């Protein structure tokens, strides 16, 4: 127990000199302990909040109480990290960087686990989970907007690249959501076709299965040649942005990856509709189209939405790789950071997609649960 408490309280900060643009090499950071990183009163407050949360969480089983404790500890960690940034930043050196280190991240992980566990035990309904998601997003936005973290290196990296950040965010969303929309427009009718015409089903699923097994980097590579040819030879293609590298191959690759889950879930969902219900619909005199639109698709909707959820979460992650072939997105920061061994830049590229994927999963899970109501 003592060691765990130590690990949680070791909120060390890392002052580090980042002379980006002058020399690529970055000076190694120095680790600081909690009491060195904050003024005494602040350090005592953070430590007290963490210890209190830990001890009380071990003593109580009530989920709402544990959730509140987790939130308290998380707030102490977040504000403490921000305060450490302000406290440690030297006034005379604009290149100095303060970054939260392993103690902060471990503490963040532990409190997040505590809160997630409490949320699961609360057994929130879909609407409750959506509200929790909105509150979480609002709190994160408030923290970032308040300036409490403005002295931390992650925010400093963001400030230096704010306009690029939002441009890449836009590309990232366009890639992930656009390819999903395209896959839905093509994949849903394809799924309906495969459901209605048995002869089409297996060949289609096999082809898409093969595409699914191609690694993303390889698929980008494979697409460069044909798209390059299209850009060079099809009039107007270049003008609408089709190139061998850049957004187009990334978009096409994500679209191809999305087709299988879209189509397969549509087929599975439609096949899962009770035979008695389909027979009754025919016997009542619904035409083929009425049966599909009024009975089969509504009943298959939860499974189809589950396909959309898989695709969206998968695409938000995969779109990060698009930066490697000039497709843009948060991957731009990630790969820049990897090239320069700049951890903050890596985080700037990695954290937003993680948060987006998480939010998309929570949102769509709630929608799926709502759509499945009354279809038991």
């Amino acid at each position, binding site marked *: 127990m003592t060691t765990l408490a130590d690990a949680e309280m070791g909120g060390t900060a890392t002052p580090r000199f980042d002379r980006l643009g002058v020399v690529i090499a970055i000076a190694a950071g120095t680790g600081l302990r909690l009491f060195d990183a904050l003024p005494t009163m602040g350090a005592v407050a953070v430590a007290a909040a963490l210890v209190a949360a830990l001890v009380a969480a071990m003593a109580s089983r009530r989920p709402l109480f544990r959730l509140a404790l987790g939130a308290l500890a998380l707030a102490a960690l977040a504000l403490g990290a921000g305060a450490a940034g302000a406290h440690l930043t030297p006034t005379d050196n604009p290149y100095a960087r303060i970054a939260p280190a392993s103690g902060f991240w471990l503490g963040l992980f532990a409190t997040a686990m505590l809160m997630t566990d409490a949320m699961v035990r609360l057994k929130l309904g879909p609407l409750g989970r959506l509200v929790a998601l909105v509150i979480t997003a609002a709190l994160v936005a408030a923290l970032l907007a308040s300036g409490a973290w403005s002295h931390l290196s992650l925010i400093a990296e963001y400030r230096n690249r704010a306009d690029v950040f939002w441009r890449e965010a836009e590309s990232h969303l366009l890639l992930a959501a656009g390819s999903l929309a395209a896959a839905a427009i093509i994949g849903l009718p394809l799924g309906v076709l495969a459901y209605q015409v048995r002869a089409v089903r297996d060949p289609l699923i096999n082809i898409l299965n093969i595409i699914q097994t191609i690694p993303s980097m390889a698929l980008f590579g494979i697409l460069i040649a044909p798209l390059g040819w299209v850009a060079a030879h099809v009039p107007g293609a270049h003008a609408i942005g089709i190139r061998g590298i850049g957004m187009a191959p990334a978009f096409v690759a994500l679209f191809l990856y999305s087709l299988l889950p879209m189509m397969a879930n549509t087929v599975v969902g439609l096949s899962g509709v009770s035979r008695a*219900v389909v027979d009754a619909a025919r*016997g009542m005199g*619904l035409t083929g189209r009425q049966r599909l639109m009024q009975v089969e698709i509504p009943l298959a909707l939860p499974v189809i939405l589950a396909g959309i959820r898989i695709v969206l979460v998968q695409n938000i992650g995969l779109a990060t790789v698009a930066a490697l072939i000039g497709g843009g997105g948060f991957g731009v920061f990630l790969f820049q950071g990897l090239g320069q061994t700049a951890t903050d830049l890596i985080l700037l590229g990695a954290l937003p997609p993680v948060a987006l994927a998480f939010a998309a999963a929570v949102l769509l899970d709630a929608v799926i649960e709502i759509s499945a109501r009354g279809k*038991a």
Partner: protein
Amino acid sequence: MIELSHLTKVYGDVAVVHDVNMHVEAGTITVIVGTSGSGKSTLLRMVNRLVEPTKGRVLVEGRDVLKMPAHELRRSIGYAIQSHGLFPHWTVARNIATVPMLLGWDRKKVAARVEELMELFQLDHVQFADRYPHELSGGQQQRVGVARAMAAKPTLLLMDEPFGALDPIIRGKAQADLKAIQRRTGTTILLVTHDMDEAIHLGDRIAVMNGGDLKQYAPAADILARPADAFVDDLIGPADRPFHYLTLGTVRTAVEPGEADGAPLAADTSLYEGLGALLWSGRRTAPVVDASGAALGRVSLGGIADKAARPR
């Protein structure tokens, strides 16, 4: 009402239904009975073209069903199936309204019809209209299924094992209710079952199917008295035959003059129930009264036994 001539359905090289000729009288209940694989469901499903006949003709009210668009034909014929097939994402009211909505009835007329049907099938409108099927008991779901089939006032109702998923007590009640509702509305019913008891209880006429052939088509009493072949005989069950026979008549037909002790029997009680009442109360005779309670005479074990004997 229905005229089937030389009706045949072939899958591969197996004739599932083979050269069936049948005439169904309007306003009656006709039960098609047979074992599984006998072709009874296929025969029924050819009437509303859920199965397209390979050969032969189906006339419903004089019209050749093969010459009508299938969906229009089906909207004009009621259809109820085993395990009801209710649309799970629609409320009870919306389910019942299915065919009227397809036919484009105006909203008020649909709502009035739904309310009327729910009352007919003893489903409280306020309590059940906005519920979903999974919130109902099996017996309630089955009633909604039949109400839905009758929503657009079809003159013909096709039922494929409609009581198959119900437990015995609820099934008996559902059969009695269906019979009462049919007598009231005059709807022609063509019903498929594997249960000879159900066939005898419900059917004005019974059609026995075996191996795709129509073996016998006659009123229940004839089927019991003169089974066409060993298969029909088997299906009835020789030991049960006299008791089946007793379910067809009422004690009124066995009334003899005289008096008797103990609780009286209503004249409309079936002979079968009358026999049971006598045996269980240890009496040899019981008084019989009519609906107003006036004494009609008495009924005896011997009198009932005479009615169970094979007619000559």
